[in-house]
């Protein structure tokens, strides 16, 4: 059985689609997408994942909780940083972020962050959460970058 990986990224289907090619071609894992936080939470609550890759700037999706959080931070995914809040909820079970308890199988070492922000901007928030696998999105990344991140995450199993 292949490991299951969830990529939470609103640009995965279009702008970043070419990064998925090498992953599917090599058949390293079963890769699924969640393009907003509500869909991600649905996936996380209904299934067990071997690795998660999270973007920081995410739209809220349909859940009223995430929509409210999004509104409170100015209805702007750049400021809302819902990806960061999602990771915090998953690691620390913060009810102020989301009332349900996060899935028990979640481990910080299985969460990678792939985002446009630099480590300098978000490292101080990610480090205390135990997130160490981090990659900034840059224009000159190879199309194997997603495969590399997945490889690092799966190696922690």
């Amino acid at each position: 059985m292949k490991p299951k990986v969830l990529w939470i990224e609103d640009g995965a289907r279009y702008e970043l689609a070419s990064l998925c090619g090498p992953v599917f071609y090599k058949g390293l894992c079963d890769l699924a997408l969640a393009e907003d936080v509500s869909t991600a939470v649905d996936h996380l609550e209904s299934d067990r994942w071997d690795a998660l890759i999270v973007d920081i700037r995410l739209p809220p999706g349909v859940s009223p909780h995430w929509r409210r959080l999004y509104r409170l931070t100015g209805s702007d995914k750049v400021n809302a940083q819902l990806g960061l809040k999602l990771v915090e909820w998953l690691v620390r079970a913060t009810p102020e972020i989301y009332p349900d308890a996060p899935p028990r199988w979640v481990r910080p070492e299985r969460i990678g962050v792939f985002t446009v922000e630099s480590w300098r901007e978000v490292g101080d928030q990610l480090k205390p959460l135990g997130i160490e696998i981090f990659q900034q999105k840059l224009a000159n990344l190879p199309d194997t970058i997603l495969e590399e991140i997945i490889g690092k995450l799966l190696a922690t199993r």
Partner: protein
Amino acid sequence: MSGDRPRVLLPEDPRDVHLLHLPMGIFVADPDGQLVVCNETARRILGLPEGEVANARIGELHADPAWYRERARAALDAALAGDGFEKAVGHLRIGGDDVYVEEILRAVVDQSSGSAAAIVGCLVDVTAEHEAAEQSRALRLKVEELAFDIGRVLHANTSTLLMVNQTLEAVSQALQPVSSAPSTPASEDPAERLPELARSLARRLERLLAAVDSERRPTVLPLEAWAHLEEQVAMLNEHETRIPVPELRGSTLRTLASAVGAALREAPLGSLPREATREVLRAADELQRGACLAQVLATRQAVVQMDTTLRALRDFITSDVRTRETRKRMPVQQWVREAVAQIGEFAKIAGVALQTQAIDPELEVFGSERELVRALANVLHNAVKYSWRREQGQPWVAIAASATSGSIHVEVENWGVPISADEIARGLVFELGYRGKWSTDRGRLGTGIGLTDALRAARAHGGDVLVSSRPARLTTLPDTHRDYHRQPFLTRVTLRLPLFPPSGRPR
């Protein structure tokens, strides 16, 4: 600051109100600036200890004593000319602090000599207001510089995008299948051909694998390579079920086709059946080319959209910095034509037809051509961007113009992404940076500037922007149902402007 003010006890009889009680500083000085008398407020503003008025020279309390002498002379000239008084903001230096006062000077003229007998002055402390105004001026300058710089950066990026777009266009032409007629409609999606090309490669690869028996295989390629090729046949045949998200299949098939070609080229010359190998390589090449073409076209669409977004952003940021364009009368027909032309390339690449209904050539508006064209182009850009592909026929954006009760209405209607009633009622769609609840579906890029800018331009011309959005088909779903906003909506954005001439009737 009110806590610093001395408490003033007013006399019981209002007729006893004395100059001393006025909340503005009042002083009398001799023509050389020697203070003769002043009230309590002036003494406080000038920082004079009680009883030392007689020793103070008003000019020397100014940061620039020459400035005061100049004002006093001007006050005398004004009095002689019968103009009354001189008013300016003076800069005092009191105990090392900068104090700004509104200073009104009036000369008392000695009629016999025609010179000043005395200067009567009023002082109002405006230090706080002056500093706030200075800060505001500095901030405004900074914003202007920033806007200018951003404009330049965006301008440079637009040139780069032009280069990228033209290169992508050339690449897409080079990748077009040879059999395609040059008149192939832009809306034909090469991604739709990929399953057929994948199956074709699978068939040819299967044929090749069958032609090389298991004994001969290790002499041609490592066994893992053969196993990998077998696996690729399965992937090619099952890619639609193995990769549930259709948009992710193209890059996988491209990678796969490239790898199949590379693997076969590793085989020693003449070790594989020549014709079968040639067919596999040709099919792999065709699949790789088709997948590349689909990606190039999708990228080009994103680049053109980005270019339009950057242009709108640059215009929006620099609109206050630029020299204001002279307003003029303009036929609505011309206005619409220019906006449609600006969006034409983006609409073409997006495969959306811009359908402009006949517009009365007599209809005219009055305003800035650049701003009005930008406002309408913003609305059209959104309409194209938020149009959905239809099962049958090309997606469209309809543009119509009419005149009613003194107003011109230019309506832009599209079929696709919904705007919720709540977002319209709360005016959220007009807020800078706001992106609609349903606008980020299907990977649409955007900044949330378009409608904000359109509204600003319309209001600057005495007009408005109206938005409505409703399900395109009859539905029994309540608007709270989770599928309600997943159906196509007809969204209409109306730019309303005053009719020209303002008589309310077109000429």
